């Protein structure tokens, strides 16, 4: 039975497979990191779009208020 702390050896051909798998993991992690970065970019774009939307709605509200005021304060000849 192996003792705790005893060295572990990996067969050379299997070691190559392990390195290949490690390479694939690294590639996938990079890919995931890039995707997450894009998601963050999109989130920022969404936020700025929402802010712009808010500003436009405020503008519309002001204009509708002005129209309302104009129509309900008719000109007295």
């Amino acid at each position, binding site marked *: 039975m192996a003792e705790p702390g005893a060295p572990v050896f990996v067969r050379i051909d*299997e070691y190559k497979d392990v390195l290949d*798998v490690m390479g694939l993991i690294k590639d996938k992690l990079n890919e995931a990191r890039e995707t997450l970065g894009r998601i963050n970019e999109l989130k920022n774009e969404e936020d700025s*779009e929402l802010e712009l*939307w808010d500003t436009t709605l405020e503008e519309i509200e002001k*204009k509708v208020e002005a129209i309302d005021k104009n129509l309900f304060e*008719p000109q007295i000849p």
Partner: protein
Amino acid sequence: MAKEEELLFVGVKEPLELRRTILESSKDVIESLQRYEKFRAIREETTKNIEKLKVDVKEISKLISKLKSELPTTSLRAEEMKEEIPERGKAVKAKKAKKKEEKPQQRVLTELEKLEAELSDIESKLGRIK
């Protein structure tokens, strides 16, 4: 009756200004609708990217499992495991028996529950290493 048919007119103050305001409001509304389309496109792209991220993470998980299988299996922790397995086995059996009594039909685990189970399994393994 004749009085009711009479047409009444209301004067509008600054009609040109009013017309301009109405047109500008329409312009703003259309811009808002355009913004909605843009927002929807962004959301769609976000959804696609989230889905891609999910796939990537699943692939990473599979690769890690593969890596684990590629590494040699040792009996380094055999003694510790031997001590724990019978107790755990008993506990699991007892739990299973209880569950069978309580729920005759076995429930299908959701994705989240499976992940939770996997996580607790990994945590227990980590606990044994420490």
